[in-house]
C-alpha cells in the first residue's frame, strides 16, 4: 500500500467528519460553522494565489499516465485549482491550534495566543510537508531556499496564515472588540454596509459574521504584505531553481 493522494484525501475526509462534530461541541455550533467557512475560504484564497503564481501545484497525479489508469485518478473534489482536502486540513490544524492555545494560555492576550497557535501549526506542517512532497500530494515549484525539500517560505506562510486567522477570529468572534487603528476605516466601510455603528460586542450574530469575514479579507492584505518580502529574501538566497508547474 502506498500513501498516495487517494489515501490522503480519504483519510482527511473521514477525520474531518469526526473533528467537525467535536469542534461543534467545543466551540459552539454557529461559531464552529463560521470558523470552518472562514478557514476554508482563507486557505482557498491563499493556495489559489499560490497555484496561479507558480508557487505550488496539486496536479502531479492528474499529469501522471500511471494514475490516469487509477480508479479515481488524482484528487476527487476540487474547489477551483485547489483540492478540498487541502482546505479541510488547514481548517483542522487551525481549529486545533486555536483550541490548544486558548486552553494552554487562557489569560494571555489574543496576539500571544495566536502566536502560539501559529507555532503549533508550523509543527503540524513540519510533519505533513515531507510526506506530502514525497508522495506528490502537492509540489513546490518556487525558486526559494529549501530545507529537506520544504521551502522555508511555506513554513513562514503557515505561521502567518494561522496567526492572522486566529487573531481575527479571537478579536472578532470570541472577544468582540473594536480595533483602535481600524475603527475609523471600519466605520466608513463595513459598518456602513451593515447599517450599524455599534461596538462589535453589541452586534447581532449575522452582523458579527460579516464583520469577521470583512476582517479576514483585510488580514489577507496583511498576509500578502508580510509574505512578499519573505518570498523576495528567500528568492535571493535560493538553493533550488523554479520548476515550471507543468514541467
Amino acid at each position, binding site marked *: 500500500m502506498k500513501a498516495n493522494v487517494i489515501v490522503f484525501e480519504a483519510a482527511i475526509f473521514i477525520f474531518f467528519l469526526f473533528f467537525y462534530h467535536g469542534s461543534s*461541541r467545543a466551540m459552539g455550533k454557529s*461559531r464552529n460553522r463560521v470558523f470552518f467557512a472562514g478557514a476554508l475560504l482563507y486557505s482557498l484564497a491563499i493556495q489559489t494565489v499560490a497555484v496561479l503564481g507558480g508557487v505550488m501545484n496539486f496536479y502531479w497525479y492528474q499529469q501522471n499516465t500511471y494514475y490516469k489508469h487509477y480508479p479515481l485518478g488524482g484528487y476527487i473534489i476540487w474547489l477551483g485549482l485547489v483540492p478540498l482536502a487541502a482546505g479541510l486540513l488547514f481548517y*483542522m490544524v487551525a481549529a486545533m491550534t486555536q483550541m490548544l492555545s486558548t*486552553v494552554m494560555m487562557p489569560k494571555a492576550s489574543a496576539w500571544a495566543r495566536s502566536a502560539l497557535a501559529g507555532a503549533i501549526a508550523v509543527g503540524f506542517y513540519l510533519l505533513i510537508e515531507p510526506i506530502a512532497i514525497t508522495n506528490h500530494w502537492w509540489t513546490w515549484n518556487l525558486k526559494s*531556499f529549501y530545507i529537506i525539500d520544504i521551502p522555508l517560505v511555506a513554513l513562514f506562510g503557515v505561521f502567518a496564515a494561522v496567526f492572522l486567522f486566529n487573531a481575527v477570529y479571537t478579536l472578532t468572534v470570541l472577544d468582540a472588540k473594536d480595533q483602535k487603528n481600524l475603527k475609523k476605516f471600519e466605520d466608513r466601510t463595513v459598518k456602513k454596509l451593515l447599517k450599524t455603528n455599534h461596538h462589535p460586542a*453589541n452586534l447581532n450574530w449575522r452582523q458579527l459574521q460579516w464583520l469577521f469575514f470583512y476582517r479576514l479579507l483585510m488580514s489577507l492584505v496583511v498576509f500578502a504584505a508580510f509574505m512578499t518580502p519573505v518570498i523576495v529574501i528567500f528568492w535571493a538566497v535560493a538553493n533550488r531553481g523554479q520548476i515550471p508547474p507543468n514541467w
Partner: protein
Amino acid sequence: MANKRIELEQYKHYVNLLEEEPNRKTARRGFLTCAIVMVILVVGFIVMGFMSTNLARNPSNVTSKPQPATSTPTGTQVPSGTQLPSGTQLPSGTQLPSGTQLPSGTQTPMAPTDKMMSDAGPAGLIDAQPGDLVAQAQSSTPTPINISAPSTSPGSVTSPGKPAAKPLPTTTSGAGNLGNLANGAGARGLDIYVLVLGIALMIVIYLGVRRVRLEGKTK
C-alpha cells in the same frame, strides 16, 4: 416601538449567546474528541511517513516528472518482431512479445499493478537496456533520476558581454534534500524525523487535554 425593537435585538443576542456558549462539560468533551482525532491523524501521518521512506530515499523523487500522457491507446499489442524507433513512449498496459527490440530512449511504463517508475526507489529505469532490469532489481542502493528540467528563473536574461550566470539546479542538495535525511541514520532518517515530530505534537495535544481535565475536576 423603538424600545420594543431594542428589546428584541437584545433577546436575539441573548439567544445567540446561549447557543454559542455550550456548557463547559459539552465543550470539554468536544475538545477531547478533537484532540483524539488529531492524535490519530498524527499517528496516521507517522505511518504514512514510514510508508514513504522508500520513495524519499531517492534524492530526485520530490522533483520527479509526472509520466506524460500518451496518445497511444492503452492495451495496445505490439506484433512479434516489431522494431520500435528510438524515443517511443509506450503507455502502460502495452504488451511486448518476445523478440521485440527496444532501442535506447524507449520509455517503458510499468503495468498498473506494479510500482511506478519514479516511485520504485531504485531509479534509472528510464533508458534501460534489455537485461538492465535484472541488474536494477539486484541492486539495493537507490540511484537518482536526473531531471533535465531547465531552470527558468525570471529576470535571468544574459547580456552578450557578461558570462552567463550559472542557473540554479532544480534539485536540492545537502540539507536541502529530503533524500539525504531519508538515507541518513542507517536509512532510517525520515522514520526518526516523523516519529520525533509526531511524539512532540502528541505531547503538546496531551498538555491541552491535561489542562481541560484538570478544569473538569476542579469544577
